[in-house]
Structure formats: structure tokens, C-alpha cells
């Protein structure tokens, strides 16, 4: 009569603890060292320089790392659930590419200069258009062909980056710097609206995704079986597409293209706590947040005072971790 496995319980306790430790590290490490014990004291001392560092640099950055990491990982786990394939994530499906195109368009056309909201909205539209296109193009006779879908995703990424380059070549020079900076992926965002918007969107989508946890669990047995069990798969998949586009679009608008978080983190989490989405959704979110926090700490310390683009770190760390895990787990065991 066990409802929650011991692994789920351990994740429920361990993950928030790890997140707390990672956040403390992220707050204390940097050019201005703030020891662990002093963080609370500093926050009560608005006149000190450390207070300003925390308030205007480190706290926004930490919040951003957690919410972007969590969101990318959550999008990955949801998409993998829909497609029942561990290779699917916003980056490999071309959704990141589509969102980038939308965002570049918003910058080039001057929409962003008018209002910062234009950026996440353009990202969302780009992401949703891509996800919809990839899905409709890869469905044949009611069956989703995974190889077709990944190929279409890659092609859409190529097309989007070509169009992004085209837009960059015709735009004013002052826009180019912004676009280049942003495509490399960085958590160095100063717009408070975008930062808190990201935090709110990520938490809201995490909560909303729990409305679909039952259908996601049944979808593990395939779409036909889910339909036979009374699940409205069409509506479920459409709603989840909307949610993941919203997440990915916002993430890319705020943090730029940060690849592989949505691929590796859900994979590792699944190997750890199993495939039950009731625990997988929050565990992926937390693990993604922790992972990106650590990546960000590395990105801003290895070549200090300069900073590495965080996409570089996630690509290298994530790729190596992925290969290591894949070669360790037995090849014939299904992971989805």
C-alpha cells in the first residue's frame, strides 16, 4: 500500500536542501567574498557595499539560475513524456531556435526598445510555432515518427539561425552587440521585470504542469493505450505544448540559448527516482535549478574577473555527464 517510494521521499528532502546549499554558495562566491554566516547579517545592513552586491547582482542572478535551470529541465521532462523519447528537449526539437528567431525579430524591429514584455512574448510565439510545426510535420497516419521529428527539429534550428543571421546583417550595428551577447546565453540580466517575470512564469508552470500529471503517467504506455484508458490525449498534449512553449520562450528571452539542461537533468532524475511524474516533475525542476546554479558559479569564477557564457559550461558539463551515464547504465534497459 505504499503510495510514495523511499526514493521519492529522499528526493523530497534532499533536493530542497541541496538547492539551499547551492544558493548560499552562489550568493557568497564572487569578486566580493561574502562568507556563508554573514549573508543574513549583510541583508540587515542596507548601507554596506555587500548589501548592494547581494541585492542588485547576486540575488537576481541566483533566482534567475534556479528558475531558468528548473524551467528548461521541466520543459525537457514534459516533452520527453509526450514523445516518450529521452532525446527530446527544447534544444534538439528546434524550439530554442524558433524562440531565438522570434526574439531576434523583436530586437531588430525595435519592439523590445518599446517594451520589455515584447521579448518573452516573441519568444513564446516563436517557440509555440516551432513546436506546432514539428509536431504536425512529424505525425503521419496518426503516428509520431521520432526520427522524422528530430530531423525536422534540426532543420528548423538551421533555418532559424540562418534567418537570425540574415536579420543581424540587415540591422543597425548597435543591435548586433545585443543579439550576439544574448545568443551566447548569460544570466547577467539587469531588467528586473524580466527577472521576476521569469521566476513567476517558472513557478506557475510548475504548478500548472501538475494538472497533467495523471495523463503524463498514463502516456508512458503510449498514446493509444492512454486513449483506451479514457485520457483525452489531444487536449493534454496541446496544453502541455502551450506550457512548454511558454517556459522555453521566456527562458530564452531572459537567458539566451542554454542547451542540454533539458536533456541531461530529466535523464539523471529519471535514473534516480524512476518514471513516476508525480515526483519526476518537481524533482526535475529542483535538479535543473541546482545544476544551473553550479554551472553559473563555475562560469563566473574560472576566468574571473571575466565571465564565460553559461551555454559553454552546460554544453561541456552536460554532454560529458550524459555520455558517462549512458555508458554506465546497461544498454538494454529502457529508461522512459
Amino acid at each position, binding site marked *: 500500500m505504499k503510495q510514495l517510494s523511499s526514493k521519492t521521499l529522499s528526493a523530497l528532502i534532499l533536493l530542497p536542501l541541496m538547492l539551499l546549499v547551492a544558493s548560499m554558495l552562489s550568493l557568497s562566491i564572487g569578486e566580493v567574498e561574502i562568507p556563508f554566516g554573514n549573508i543574513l547579517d549583510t541583508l540587515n545592513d542596507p548601507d554596506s557595499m555587500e548589501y548592494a552586491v547581494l541585492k542588485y547582482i547576486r540575488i537576481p542572478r541566483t533566482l534567475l539560475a534556479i528558475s531558468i535551470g528548473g524551467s528548461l529541465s521541466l520543459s525537457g521532462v514534459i516533452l520527453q513524456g509526450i514523445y516518450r523519447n529521452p532525446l527530446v528537449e527544447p534544444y534538439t526539437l528546434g524550439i530554442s531556435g524558433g524562440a531565438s528567431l522570434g526574439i531576434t525579430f523583436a530586437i531588430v524591429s525595435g519592439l523590445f526598445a518599446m517594451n520589455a514584455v515584447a521579448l518573452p512574448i516573441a519568444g513564446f510565439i516563436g517557440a509555440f510555432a516551432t513546436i506546432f510545426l514539428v509536431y504536425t510535420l512529424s505525425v503521419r497516419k496518426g503516428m509520431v515518427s521520432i526520427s522524422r521529428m528530430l530531423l525536422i527539429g534540426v532543420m528548423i534550428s538551421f533555418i532559424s539561425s540562418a534567418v537570425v543571421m540574415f536579420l543581424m546583417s540587415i540591422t543597425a550595428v548597435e543591435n548586433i552587440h545585443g543579439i550576439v551577447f544574448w545568443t551566447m546565453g548569460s544570466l547577467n540580466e539587469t531588467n528586473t521585470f524580466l527577472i521576476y517575470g521569469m521566476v513567476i512564469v517558472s513557478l506557475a508552470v510548475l504548478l500548472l504542469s*501538475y494538472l497533467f500529471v495523471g495523463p503524463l503517467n*498514463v502516456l*508512458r*504506455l503510449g498514446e493509444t493505450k492512454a486513449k*483506451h*484508458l*479514457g485520457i483525452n490525449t489531444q487536449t493534454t498534449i496541446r496544453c502541455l505544448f502551450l506550457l512548454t512553449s511558454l517556459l522555453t520562450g521566456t527562458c530564452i528571452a531572459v537567458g539566451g540559448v542554454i542547451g542540454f539542461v533539458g536533456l541531461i537533468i530529466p535523464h539523471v532524475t529519471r535514473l534516480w527516482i524512476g518514471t513516476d511524474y508525480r515526483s519526476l516533475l518537481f524533482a526535475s525542476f529542483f535538479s535543473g535549478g541546482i545544476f544551473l546554479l553550479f554551472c553559473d558559479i563555475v562560469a563566473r569564477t574560472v576566468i574571473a574577473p571575466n565571465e564565460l557564457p553559461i551555454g559553454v559550461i552546460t554544453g561541456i558539463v552536460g554532454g560529458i555527464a550524459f555520455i558517462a551515464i549512458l555508458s554506465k547504465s546497461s544498454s538494454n534497459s529502457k529508461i522512459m
Partner: protein
Amino acid sequence: MLEITDLVCGYGNDFCLDKVNITIEEGAFTGIIGPNGSGKSTLFKAIASDIPIRSGSVRLAGKDTTALSLKERARMLSVVTQFQELSPITVEEFVLMGRTPYRGNFQFFNSREDYQIVNYFIELTGITHLRHKRITELSGGEQQMASIASALAQEPKLLLLDEATSHLDITHQIRIMNLLQELNETRGLTIAMIIHDLSLAGEFCSNLVMMKKGKVYDQGTPKEVLTYQNIEAVYETVVVVNSNPISNNPVVFPIAKRRLDECKRSMQPHAEVK
């Protein structure tokens, strides 16, 4: 229980089902037989609303299936297929999936009643010793038993099995057929199954529907349907049909072509003598 009237279905311009009329009474154990491509699986897909119906109707317990909600349909009908996508979940979790149509949209945990029903069917199908094993680690026969347990946990009025035993050894085939017969007789469960083994169909099913090229060729009791004339006409194969010495049900024997030729040759001189 199930009334199919003038059903037409198909992909593209081909009609896989052409004006099919089948009635399955409550409490029947019907075998659907016919060669590959005769429309058996399409028929099941049409019943389960996996494919659209072009014309005609499928009525389940007096209600048109297109008018039923997904949940209502899932409470009346469950489908077991030959192979299905598997996920590394335990047998218990897998069987619990069968309770989905009875669960509220926002219900995160299984109820006590769900567990009782699942326990009952896990015991009934004889897979208690496997309940904490992952279904991906089971043998084909064990997986099929788990699929049946999951389908039964759905508490359907009609159980459809699409070649559920075709890839199994004779032990598992007969074990599953015995279980189905027991469920049919003691619980009054209506069963329709697509089955390729004609002798197995003849021994266990209460009536048979024989299909040929998208049409119903013949239907009735096994003795009426399983005649060598019918089998020759539908399968284009010569066989010998005899009766089982214990149950008296029809048994279909294959004949090697060489033997058949020898037999024909040995009959030739007699004809000349006459």
C-alpha cells in the same frame, strides 16, 4: 452488448471494412478469425474509436460509441493488444493504470478501493510473485498476463483481445484461454478476441466470426463455422477438420503439400478403373 451495423471503415481510398454487421450478445466469448489483412484489427480499432467510422454505427450496450465520452467508453471497454509500449514500471503500477477511468482529474493518489481491485486481479491472473518486478523484465507470457490484469482492473463490460496469445508458447496460450473462459463463465464478462489458432478458437470460443476481405464470411458456433469448405474458401488452404475426442470441438489439421499431391495421385487410378 455490441451491435455493429453496416460499418464501413478504411484508410485513404481503400475500404478495409465493407458493410460489416456483427452482433455480440452479452456473455458471449467470440473469436474473430480470418487471414491477415481481412480487416480483423481494423474492426477492433473501429470499435475502440481509434480510427474514424465512414458510415454505419457501432453501439456499445445500446449507446453509439461516438456519443460516449472517452471516460465512459474506457469504463465499458478495454483492449489488450499483442505488443504494447512498455515503460519500466512495476507490475503493480502497471495494473493500477487500469483504474485510470475511475480516477478524478486531480486525484494524485490511488484509493483503497483501487488497491483492493488491483490486488484481486493480480491474484486472479496468478502474477502475485511478480508484482514488484518491472514489466520490462518479464517474459512475453508474463507481460501478457499483466496486460490482461490491467485490462480487467478497468472493470470493462466488453474485453477486446487483439492477437493477445499469438506470440506465446502453448502453456501460456492455454493458461490465458482458461482464464478468459473462467472470467466469461463466472463473471459474465463479454469477450471478443482476434485469434489465429483455429483449433484454439474452436475449443474455447462460444461462437466465431469469420472474416474475408473486409466482410463477414460466416458466423455461428465453432462447429458451424470451422468446416473445411469455409476454411478453404477464406484461407485458400486445404485442411482436414476433425473433432477433438475429449471435447468434441472442431480441430483443424494442416496437410503438407507433398502428402496432398501423393493422395491425389493415388486416387487417380481408381478414377480410371471406374
